[in-house]
Every structure is written in structure tokens, then in C-alpha cells.
């Protein structure tokens, strides 16, 4: 491989493309299926209830405290599969690279994908690389597609919430959003908050082992906890009553949100999940979550009500308010 930046030949399908695949992608992501270098991945059917999910990743900045676009691209899709109760098995990855992108950065990103996929126990079995001219991309975009298998008897889904059920959260909210914002070029501020970017399939497996009839699993990514809960309330035709004091929040995240005029409830997470289960199983589920490293701070944060579509919260102050979807983008306050 020559040069230290991506140029148009890396996407041309010729020698430079082959070198990039062999010396960079396969070095970090290699496995027998990928190394076969066929036009497609041949895999043995792992079961009869398969889950397929795809996710495009366009984050800025590409590297942030606690992760990068590579780990995010793996964990994002792994988590989407896990929220369906699936055991994630395989990923494919499509890269759109911008001409001029430093190869050293690409190497770091792909190495991070390799580490994340090994940690999650999934293999990247097919991939694609295209290069766009300078100015037509933002460094690198990564789309990952994942395949997983759902064990028999497991069927969490967004329509499964019923009045009386308990709402659990696996840990602190807003860490990812604050970590990323802190590194935006026009918003530089000092914080030691790390993104929570992590694969949740291990946690989900432990939870399902303890309580197989979890009704809903959802990862509150963009739009934060408020969007996830509103999606559930709408899809299930129920309401949700939250207790603000029970929602785990790091002081540093609370302080950063305060300073920027953001609501932690609307702030993104990349390694947290919401689970809804029958009330009589809540204690068992909570114990299973807290026993896992990614659920150490888990808490029961509320319950499902029969007020269709209404997500409400008893504030720590003692009043009540709605918890609405995030409208547009979160904007820092001006006054």
C-alpha cells in the first residue's frame, strides 16, 4: 500500500483496492469467511428465527472520548439485534471514504471495529469500500448490517408493554451525547465523561436467562430515553409514568447538560437499554442486570400505565410533567 491518504484509486476496484482490503481491512477483521474473498459470505443457517438489522454511522467527530465511529458501527448494529432478543452472529460493513482521508485514521477505526466485534462475539463476514471525491463525504461513513438468531420462546418487541408492567433502565443516561458534544470543534469544553459505547448482547443474554418473558427491550440512542419511551408508549398504546429521582445520571453529565441547556432525557446513549417486564419479575430482572458489568447502575425507573401515548414523570422536585420527544436537534440555550 503506498501513500498515507485515501485517494480515488482505493475505490477503483483495481490493485490499490485489493491492497487496502488485504493489508488493512482483513488484517483487523479477518476470519475464514471474509478471507475467502468471495462476492458474498456463505454461512450456515444458525436457526429458523433470524433477525436482520442495518444502521448507517455518520458521527462527527470520528474519534470521541470512550469510542470512535468503528466501535460505534459494530455496537450500534449488535445492539439493534440484541434488542430483538437475538444472539448477534454476523455483520457486514460498507465504507464510504472521502478522498484525502488519512490511512492512519482508517487503520485506527478498522482496528477498533475488530476489537469491538471480538468483544461482542460477532464476525464481520462481508464488506465493501467506495471512495468519494474530497468535499463529498465527511471522512468516513460506515454502514453495518447484522444477522442474529432469536432463541425459541423469546419475543421482546416494541408493542409488548402492558399497564402495570415495570420499566427498568440499565444505567446512567446521556454519557455518549455529552462525550461527543464535548469534542465538537465549536463547543470545546473540558469533561472527563466517556461515551458508554458498548455491545449489549451479553447483558441481554443474562437478562433473558433470568426473565425470558421480557416484554420490551429498546436501546435509547439518538433522541435519548425520552424518544425510546415515547416510541414504546405509542407502539404499545400505553402510557409510562417515570420517577425522575430513580433515573441514574452522572454528576458530570448533569453539569454539562445544565451548562448547555440540554435535557439528559433527550441526550444520546450507545450502551444503555430500557427493559419492560411484568411487575412480579422486576426484582429478578434488576438483580440480573446489576450482576452484569454493563448493568451495574441499573434501576427500576417507572411503570406502564393505561394513559395511551402519555409519558409522564414525577419530578425530583415534587411536581409532574410530560416527557416529550426531542423536537428537532437539541440546541444550547441562548439566554
Amino acid at each position, binding site marked *: 500500500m503506498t501513500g498515507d491518504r485515501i485517494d480515488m484509486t482505493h475505490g477503483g476496484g483495481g490493485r490499490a483496492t485489493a491492497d487496502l482490503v488485504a493489508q488493512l481491512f482483513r488484517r483487523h477483521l479477518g476470519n475464514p469467511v471474509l478471507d475467502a474473498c468471495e462476492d458474498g459470505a456463505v454461512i450456515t443457517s444458525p436457526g429458523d428465527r433470524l433477525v436482520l438489522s442495518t444502521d448507517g454511522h455518520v458521527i462527527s467527530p470520528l474519534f470521541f472520548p470512550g469510542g470512535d465511529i468503528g466501535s460505534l458501527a459494530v455496537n450500534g448494529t449488535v445492539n439493534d439485534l440484541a434488542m430483538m432478543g437475538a444472539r448477534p452472529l454476523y455483520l457486514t460493513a460498507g465504507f464510504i471514504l472521502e478522498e484525502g482521508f488519512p490511512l492512519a485514521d482508517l487503520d485506527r477505526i478498522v482496528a477498533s471495529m475488530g476489537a469491538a466485534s471480538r468483544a461482542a462475539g460477532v464476525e464481520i463476514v462481508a464488506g465493501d469500500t467506495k471512495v468519494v471525491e474530497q468535499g463529498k463525504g465527511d471522512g468516513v461513513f460506515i454502514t453495518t448490517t447484522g444477522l442474529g438468531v432469536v432463541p425459541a420462546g423469546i419475543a421482546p418487541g416494541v408493542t409488548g408493554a402492558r399497564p402495570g408492567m415495570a420499566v427498568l433502565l440499565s444505567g446512567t443516561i446521556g454519557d455518549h451525547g455529552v462525550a461527543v458534544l464535548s469534542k465538537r470543534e465549536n463547543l470545546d469544553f473540558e469533561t472527563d465523561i466517556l461515551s458508554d459505547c458498548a455491545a449489549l448482547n451479553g447483558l441481554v443474554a443474562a437478562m433473558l436467562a433470568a426473565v425470558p418473558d421480557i416484554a420490551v427491550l429498546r436501546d435509547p440512542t439518538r433522541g435519548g430515553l425520552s424518544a425510546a419511551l415515547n416510541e414504546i408508549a405509542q407502539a404499545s398504546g400505553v402510557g409510562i409514568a417515570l420517577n425522575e429521582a430513580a433515573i441514574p445520571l452522572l454528576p458530570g453529565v448533569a453539569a454539562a447538560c445544565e451548562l448547555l441547556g440540554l435535557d439528559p432525557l433527550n441526550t444520546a446513549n450507545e450502551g444503555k437499554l430500557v427493559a419492560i417486564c411484568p411487575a412480579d419479575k422486576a426484582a429478578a430482572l434488576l438483580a440480573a442486570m446489576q450482576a452484569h458489568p454493563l448493568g451495574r447502575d441499573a434501576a427500576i425507573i417507572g411503570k406502564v400505565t393505561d394513559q395511551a401515548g402519555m409519558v409522564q414523570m414525577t419530578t425530583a422536585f415534587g411536581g409532574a*410533567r*410530560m416527557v416529550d420527544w426531542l*423536537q428537532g436537534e437539541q*440546541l444550547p440555550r441562548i439566554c
Partner: protein
Amino acid sequence: MRYITAFRDGTLAQGLAARIAAEADPARAYHLMEFCGGHTHAIFRYGVQDLMPPNVRFVHGPGCPVCVLPVRRLDDAIELAERHGVILATYGDMMRVPGTARHSLIRAKAAGADIRMVYSTLDALAIARDNPGRDVVFFAIGFETTTPPTAVAILQAGAEGLRNFSVFCNHVLTPAAIDHILSSPDFAPGGLGRIDGFLGPSHVSAVIGSAPYRAAVERHGKPVVIAGFEPLDVMQSVLMLIRQINEGRAEVENEYTRVVTDHGNRKAQALVNRVFNIRESFEWRGLGTVPRSALAIRPDHAAFDAEARFALSDKQSREVKSCECPAVLRGVKKPTECKLFGNGCTPETPMGACMVSSEGACAAYWSYGRMREPA
């Protein structure tokens, strides 16, 4: 953070709620206008109304800088970006406010105008430095809180010789607005609404001090208590207002003593006076033309005044039909009394400014209070 959570303590709130309930005379009603959108937001976000006796009601005031900017001035800003080809630097809240025919900065940007969101005037100066061949206009809005940073930007641009930088100045003044509201027939006996006292601005008062409210308080006999933006500040200030009303007093009191002094921030005031003078009158959305209620850039800084540098066209600016923002901003209608509320007008598809800004009363009702009064 401990300093913040201390002002949101639920146990202290219950104690204050009990004292307010004991102080409030059940035989009378207390209509308290919170001037600032920041207070409106705190009242809804923390559910402060739930801790009040039924005869203590909040009337939401016009203190939302995005909301009070008249359509004409927004249309002018859009024209600067679209017709004069400038880079328009704006606070993010302005982006989605609908102008005439529901055009907006965000739509103009999508159509190719160079409009950039900034977090401070320093960002706007940086854009001017980075684009020496382009005119960069900072769309300055806001009350006395945001005025000193604009003054600093103009002085800094002068010191650096940044000839491509200018400011489209829309800064407005709080005491003039309070006086205007209390002079309005809306709040005279038999009018559409009622105000028994004001929760005075917190950040604004940090700059101007508590003294400037005295003239309006003496003229109209309504008390003002300068209140911090934390929910316990709001409750303590309500208690102070109720005491004044019960005792027949009308004074300027200061609950927010940890930040606000009688004379305010003299250094900031001096900066503002160096750069700005008072306009004879200015149009506010909702309040109409208010005398001596806004700032213009002084002639000796005219090189940085976008209004002096660019010829803005005459235009027929219009609000969205049936939008009740003006009445909501005057405090005579609740957001839920607007027929557009929830019927096409939501924070996602705002038809009026009060639904756009997080400090707007409509947005607060929609996002936090919808379960109380279904649309």
C-alpha cells in the same frame, strides 16, 4: 453541581409549598406574571404549579427573546442572507421561527443561503476572521443578558479591523416592557387579564440590577420580586410576592441576592452604553410598538451596523393567520386557547415563535404540560 441540586430539593419544596398555602388568602386570587421564558420553563419542567394552591396562578410573560422579535425583523434577517449574500451567524433558536409565508432561516439555508448557527458572538467573530472576502452579519437578539457580549464583539471587531463583520441589532429592554404591559388596557380593571405581581428576570437583573424596575412598580402599584431560575427560587419569590400583596405593599424585592445587586454589573452596563443607544421605539411581537424599549448601534460604530451597511427592502410582513402568539405573549391567552395549538402547530411544525423556542410558553405547555389541559 451540589450548588444546583440544592435549589431543586424536593423536601425544601414541600416546606415552601406549605408556607405558600398558609400565606395565600383563600378569599383572593393571585395572578403572578413570570416575565421570563426561563421561569416559564422552570415552572413546567419541575411541575411547580402542582405545588401551588389553586388560587395562585402563573401568567406567562413575554420574556422569550425569540418570541418577541417581530416577523418583519426576521424577514429582514432572511433577506440579508438570501439577497445580500452575507454569511448570517445566528443563535440556533432562531432557525425554525416562521417568518412571512412560513419562510424561515432553516428553509433559506436549505435553499442555499449561508446561515450558520453559533453559540456565542465569539463564534461569529471567528467566522468573520476565517472569511475575509465575505460579509458576516451577526443576528443579535435578546434582552439585557445577551447585549454585553454583542457590545464586546463590536468593540473587538473594531480593535481587530474586521471590516467584514457587522451586527443586525435587535436587543430589547425589559423594564420598558414591564411598564408597557402594566399600562396596557388588557390589564386595567375590566380588561382581558389580570396581574397582581411580577416574578422579575434573573439573568437580566444580574446585568441591570434591581433598581431599574422601581419606576414601573411605583407608577402601577404592582410588586416585583427578582427571582432566580431554579424552582426553589421561583417558589420563594412567589411567597415574597404573596406577602407583599397581602400587606398591600408594592416594592422591588430581590430573592436572587446570590447573583443580583441593586446596581447590577456596572462594567457590562458601561460596555453597552459605549456601543448602543436607545431607539425611540421598537416593535415587539404581541406588545406592539413600545417606546424606548430597544437598542440601536451608536453612529460612531455604524461601520458595524448591518442596518446602516445593507439597504433592506420594504416588505409586507405577516404572522401566520390565526396564530395567537401576540395574545399569548401579552399574557391574555393561554397557549391552549389558540386553535392552532396541537392542530398543526407543534414544536416540530411550529406556526408561531412561542412554539419554537424552548423558552416559549406554547412549547412549555406542549412539551411538559400537555397532560393537564388536553388540546
